[in-house]
């Protein structure tokens, strides 16, 4: 087989031809840079590509067609909630009043955006069951760091200086332990119970006067609701520690479980997962953090405030000395939050609850189809939430075909692969998250493909092991890429032309 679809493209640098100019901006006066002192000047202009608009546009359009995306097909990437990205969101973010507003514009000329941000905060407060929200963090991991720094500040404000431990289940996202380290704390990894849930006894044994926080993903990274969470949270608070909830899986619990009501103290929300802001090929996201009242004094600065007269303003520099400080420049990824606002308003309370119902229904339906086929191991057979784990462990033992091979073969069927080899605690794991916006026909087609690949592993394992066969490229030499990194194009000398003026 050979690729029949879009072809790989030459580098932008190879399209360059010395002397091509685009005239996108006027020419400056010839003396424009005369006052620039010699010691600060660039000696040689940067060797950027010289391409015209048609060549550049074709280059990027052709490149785009090498991508699988939600707009082109099913994307059941577990833990990432690759749901539909509504087009009205993109329209909204591009309204000039939103897009062209300078981040340091005085409050008086930014009332529309400030009101929008304030309303997003109010909605997220209700959804999370918490008391206050910061919209500043730029992504989920950034929110984690924000939350853990607030917890650290809270303990220190009480003279409680010895709380250095963060308890994290071994099934957690790698961002959780990495966050603890960035916050100057120590990760204590707790093994999951055999049923995939938290091991209450192990947690209780590790909790004590040095515990700063526990970080819990609920539902867990195995797609299971942590039914012992109530007892765990009591134990956490009994030793004076606080509970952080990783909100990566919020899509499974909207309107069914409010972390703040249940006893969590802090959580982050991934707008690019739950609230449909696009993933952008890796980002941007936004990672708002919701906290209970006692942590509100430590929220990053500046907060958006509503004055008694109904006007909105940002906190002034230094206005709230208890704050952990800034987590980023300016107020936040407002353009992302405009999109989230559109989505939240579109759905309202009842619509958000329906999202969760349909997401969980889709995951259980798909899981049921795979379980009934017997093609894959289903390590946790009960009801799942918005995602579930299937494993190729038996297939591997029988045929030598691994989860990686199955993932690659799915690409030939026109599907993106699930998240593979995560969580680390399950052998040959595939974490499958269909989301609420995929039809029963798509779910069936995906199940059929997975089942067919499992059969193919028995009948023709080499086809699976050498997949993909119809993607723009075959499997890549990742070892060579890491041993001899080539991380930038190196233009040959003479490839650039000095500016004539």
């Amino acid at each position, binding site marked *: 087989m050979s690729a029949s679809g879009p072809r790989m493209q030459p580098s932008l640098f190879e399209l360059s031809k010395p002397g091509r100019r685009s005239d996108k901006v006027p020419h400056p006066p010839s003396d424009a840079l005369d006052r620039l002192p010699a010691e600060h000047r660039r000696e040689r202009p940067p060797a950027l590509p010289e391409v015209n608009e048609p060549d550049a546009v074709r280059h990027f359009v052709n490149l785009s067609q090498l991508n699988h995306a939600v707009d082109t097909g099913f994307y059941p990437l577990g833990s990432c909630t690759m749901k539909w990205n509504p087009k009205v969101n993109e329209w909204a973010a591009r309204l000039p009043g939103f897009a062209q507003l300078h981040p340091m514009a005085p409050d008086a000329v930014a009332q529309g955006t400030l009101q929008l941000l304030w309303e997003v905060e109010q909605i997220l407060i209700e959804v999370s069951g918490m008391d206050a929200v910061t919209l500043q963090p730029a992504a989920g991991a950034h929110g984690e760091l924000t939350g853990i720094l607030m917890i650290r500040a809270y303990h220190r404000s009480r003279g409680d200086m010895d709380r250095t431990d963060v308890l994290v289940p071994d099934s957690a996202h790698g961002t959780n332990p990495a966050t603890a380290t960035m916050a100057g704390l120590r990760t204590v990894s707790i093994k999951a119970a055999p049923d995939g849930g938290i091991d209450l006894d192990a947690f209780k044994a590790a909790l004590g006067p040095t515990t700063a926080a526990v970080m819990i993903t609920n539902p867990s990274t195995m797609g299971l609701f942590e039914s012992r969470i109530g007892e765990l949270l009591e134990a956490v608070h009994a030793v004076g520690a606080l509970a952080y909830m990783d909100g990566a899986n919020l899509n499974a619990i909207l309107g069914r479980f409010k972390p703040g009501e249940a006893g969590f103290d802090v959580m982050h929300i991934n707008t690019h997962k739950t609230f449909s802001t696009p993933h952008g090929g890796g980002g941007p996201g936004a990672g708002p953090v919701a906290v209970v009242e006692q942590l509100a004094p430590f929220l990053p600065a500046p907060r958006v405030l509503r004055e008694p007269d109904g006007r909105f303003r940002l906190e002034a520099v230094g206005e709230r000395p208890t704050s952990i400080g800034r987590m980023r420049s300016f107020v936040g990824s407002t353009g992302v939050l405009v999109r989230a606002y559109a989505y939240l308003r579109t759905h309202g309370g009842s619509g958000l609850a329906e999202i969760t119902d349909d997401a969980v229904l889709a995951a259980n339906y798909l899981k049921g189809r795979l379980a009934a086929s017997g093609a894959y191991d289903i390590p946790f057979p009960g009801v799942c939430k918005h995602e579930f784990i299937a494993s190729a462990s038996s297939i591997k033992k029988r045929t030598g075909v691994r989860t990686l091979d199955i993932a690659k073969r799915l690409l030939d069927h026109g599907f993106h692969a699930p998240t593979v*080899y995560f969580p680390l605690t399950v052998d040959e794991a595939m974490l499958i998250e269909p989301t609420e916006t995929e039809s029963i026909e798509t779910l069936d087609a995906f199940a059929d493909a997975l089942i067919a690949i499992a059969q193919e592993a028995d009948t023709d394992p080499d086809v699976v092991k050498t997949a993909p066969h119809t993607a723009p490229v075959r499997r890549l030499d*990742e*070892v060579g890429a*890491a*041993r001899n990194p080539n991380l930038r194009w190196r233009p040959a000398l003479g490839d650039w032309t000095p500016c004539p003026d």
Partner: protein
Amino acid sequence: MVPADLHYTKDHEWVRVDGDTATIGVTDFAAHQLGDVVFVDLPATGRTIEQFATFGVVESVKAVSDLYAPVSGEVVAVNGDLASQPELVNSDPFGKGWMIRVRVSDSAQVDGLLDAAAYEHLTAEA
């Protein structure tokens, strides 16, 4: 293939003691578990390392592992070939894939390590 003349840690390092000099590397088992090694981070000569403390890192594409010192001592040589040929750790872990040489500060430490039989037993269980 576990050479009989070496000593081992439970973390899969080997050590060959020759007078007061110890040569240290990782076992074939460890190299196999990691997969294709792409990078080895080793201490500079002159540094002192402590028994069972980390002295470096070995990376493959999808995994990373700390290196634990089988014995304490001063690093007197580092295998410079690994910078350009990290694959030697996979192809010849007990030979050209050696990592560091150490002037041993307490030769009695070796007695507490696993011998070949004990190490083979350990990896057979894994």
